[in-house]
């Protein structure tokens, strides 16, 4: 069941009514939310529902098992390892089996060896990567002692909650489960923000993302030889805009419909193409994934606590695994590798400045100590093994921005991100190379795909990220004071415009396949 469909509109109206009528009776409300979520998921394929049920029961078992053991004991570690292995094993089976088998067969083939491995047809359950990361937050937080095991019913609602089921945001168990503890006040719904998010999401998806996909992006990435260099350049930039408008649209709609049901989900995007560095980009793009990778992968790997070299290795590992999470293919791994390289370079630049600042500070302190006539009497705060014998040294003064300036860092970051998307979008390195090569081969003509519509969609898709947040908030405030009948009229006119201006049929969201 896709969000921008009549079927979903009817479904949601019924769920909305049931949600608020039943919310005060928790014993009925929770099963209701679980059932409607399963109906939503089963609409694609009823077999997927079994996977959800299995995931809920198995992870609840792991959580209870871990909670019953001594905190952080060896036994608890083994139980956690079993839980992680089971979840990643299921993900690996569904998502990476074919990639693994074909890679092995082709690798052996280069040595003229044959491997008769079974090549099964495995249907990838919708949103399984998101599901895996969600349930892992539950068992890991229980292991860490930051979360108590919930009831099986509560946990099942968390696993299956339909708005974020297919493509996030990756709400953590610790963020969602407390919202099931008591009924919300039905007089305190942030309706105007919800309507803004839902309608804005539909506009981004139907008028920008789908338009760019059909009018330039799909063609450029599959038949680059048919396009001029300018068209290819616009197609690549167009894909940057498309993937943002598509993915953030899903997140906005998911957050909006959750708000209408009385739930709050974490934000997933914050104007990512205004980022001034790659670090900044990952603080703004797919924020819930970035947080997940940071807290459940990068920090457990040691983060930046084990020396500079190890920090860089951890960054690289995190980004490569993040790339692999997106898709089973070498181009996804390379995409993650590119980001790993970029983050390492940015960290090195900042680290170098930090080193210099530390040296300057040390010299200043030595000078100050000498002037005070107490040089050598006081250990220096930054020295190895030194204990602060005087108040802590002043904070190091250095520029923490990887790149200086306001405009060029933005342009450079966007250019890098756009370049990296080429590998994300291409099935093979050969296909990516064809697109890149075409950028330099045909600058003689403009090309028929360079239309005002394409240029406008790209400009709006990027420009909208530079609109101050306060402007949206004023719009939301303006809508909120209207009479509900007028709000309905505004929305109806909006839907009519979407229907006339949008594509003929709804297209699936890009991130469904991840």
């Amino acid at each position, binding site marked *: 069941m896709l969000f921008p469909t009549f079927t979903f509109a009817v479904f949601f109206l019924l769920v909305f009514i049931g949600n608020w009528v039943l919310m005060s009776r928790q014993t009925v409300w929770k099963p209701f939310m679980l059932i409607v979520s399963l109906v939503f998921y089963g609409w694609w394929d009823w077999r997927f529902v079994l996977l959800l049920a299995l995931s809920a029961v198995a992870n609840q078992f792991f959580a209870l098992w871990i909670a019953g053991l001594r905190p952080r004991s060896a036994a608890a570690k083994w139980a956690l390892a079993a839980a992680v292995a089971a979840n990643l094993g299921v993900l690996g089976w569904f998502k990476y089996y074919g990639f693994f088998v074909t890679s092995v067969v082709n690798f052996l083939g280069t040595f003229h060896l044959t491997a008769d491995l079974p090549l099964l047809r495995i249907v990838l359950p919708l949103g399984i990567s998101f599901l895996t990361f969600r349930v892992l937050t539950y068992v890991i937080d229980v292991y860490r002692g930051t979360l108590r095991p919930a009831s099986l019913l509560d946990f099942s609602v968390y696993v299956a909650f339909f708005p974020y089921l297919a493509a996030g945001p990756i709400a953590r168990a610790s963020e969602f489960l407390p919202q099931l503890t008591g009924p919300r006040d039905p007089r305190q719904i*942030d309706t105007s923000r919800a309507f803004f998010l839902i309608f804005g999401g539909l506009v981004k998806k139907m008028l920008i993302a789908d338009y760019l996909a059909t009018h330039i992006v799909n063609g450029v990435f599959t038949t680059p030889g*048919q396009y001029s260099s300018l068209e290819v350049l616009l197609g690549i930039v167009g894909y940057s805009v498309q993937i943002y408008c598509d993915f953030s649209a899903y997140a906005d709609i998911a957050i909006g419909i959750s708000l209408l049901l009385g739930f709050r989900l974490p934000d997933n995007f914050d104007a990512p193409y205004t980022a001034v560095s790659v670090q900044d980009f990952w603080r703004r793009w797919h924020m819930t994934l970035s947080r997940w990778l940071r807290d459940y992968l990068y920090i457990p790997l040691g983060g930046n606590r084990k020396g500079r070299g190890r920090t860089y290795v951890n960054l690289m590992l995190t980004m490569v695994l993040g790339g692999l999470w997106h898709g089973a293919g070498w181009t996804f791994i390379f995409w993650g590798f590119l980001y790993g390289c970029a983050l390492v370079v940015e960290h090195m630049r900042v680290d170098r400045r930090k080193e210099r600042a530390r040296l300057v500070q040390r010299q200043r302190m030595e000078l100050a100590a000498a002037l005070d006539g107490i040089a050598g009497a006081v250990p220096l705060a930054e020295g190895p093994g030194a204990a602060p014998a005087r108040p802590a040294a002043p904070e190091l003064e250095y520029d923490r921005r990887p790149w200086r300036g306001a405009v060029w860092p933005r342009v450079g970051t966007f250019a890098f991100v756009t370049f990296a998307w080429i590998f994300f979008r291409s099935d093979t390195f050969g296909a990516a190379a064809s697109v890149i090569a075409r950028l330099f081969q045909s600058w003689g003509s403009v090309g028929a795909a360079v239309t005002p519509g394409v240029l406008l969609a790209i400009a709006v898709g990027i420009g909208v990220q530079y609109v101050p947040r306060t402007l949206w908030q004023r719009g939301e405030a303006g809508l909120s004071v209207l009479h509900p009948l007028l709000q309905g009229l505004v929305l109806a006119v909006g*839907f009519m415009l979407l229907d006339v201006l949008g594509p003929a049929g709804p297209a699936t969201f890009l991130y469904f396949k991840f």
Partner: protein
Amino acid sequence: MAEHRTPGDEGREQPLPFGRRRRTAASALVAMLVAFCLGALFNAPAMKKTALEMPFGGARSFRLALVRPLADVSHWLFLDRPAELTAQAVGRPDPGAGVRVAVVVPTPTPTATGKPGGHGQKPGKPLQERPLPKPFKGHPMHLYIAGDSMMGLPGMALVNLSNKTKLIKPKLDYHISSGLVRPDFFNWPAEVQQQVRTFDPGAVAVMFGANDNQGIETGSGHVYAFGTEGWKKEYAKRVQDMIGLLFQDGVRRVYWIGQPIMPSSSFDRQLQAMNGIYRSVAEKTHGVVYIDTWSLLSRNGAYSQYLPGVDGEMVQVREQDGEHLTYAGGLIVAQAVLDAIKKEWFAKKGEGRPSSPPSPRATKSATPAP
């Protein structure tokens, strides 16, 4: 548009920026119901068009029973006008156009179906039986590629392979959910006629059928259920008419790409029945080559998601739905089409041009037998 907040702090409702007001669930419901009902009335013609385009059967009748009165009410209240005027203003097709305008399906004219003398052709052999002009650099053979979504990635692969030869100028034209059964949804005969007249292709590669497993309505309004004898007869006629339309405007070769093996055995049987029709028409018609993708994309006669690709490496040939081809799968099909094209169009002097198809000619004409 993001607004920073910390999830999990329910119960402590904080004031919202710029005096934004929270509303009750009841007022949200009123707004949504108004938006839903009014939106449905605004969009009723488009909804009716969508319902009309559904496959013939109970679901279509049910949907029509719901949206017909809605469209009538919308029309009486002039609520269909805003969408119509907006579409006119931005140069988009009228959302309900298909409901009001009858579909005209072009058919080949009996006097101009490729026979000598038809459409200004010189007397003598039918065009398709004459030697093919050899393409050369600067004078490529135009290849028009048409079909439904199944033709998407194979078509793109064929475009890329064709460009590499520098002797073929390809043009891809595919439309999702389309086929030969429902010209009211997408009028392929009209489309190919227009494309052929403007692009002037020497050869055409087509792939249809994946959406054609539904009832078919004849010109007299009779609907034959899928798979019946009447359906087969009418469908074969449409295939023949399509080829006739192509030939009458000067197309020399048609490469009719059959449907590949499918994971669902019932769907596969349906497509195999259609493949039988395409193959039969191709065998009877000079100038039509049938490309058997069912064999190309099966593994020992069975379905497989993975097969050796054109370079021998094991590749995933089907998308996640199991039906549509990936680019790597499309390349296999495209290579087969290109091989068939090269065999006839790129034959070197002295090699001779094998007659296509290899089967005996059933008719003297370049058009299929009725």
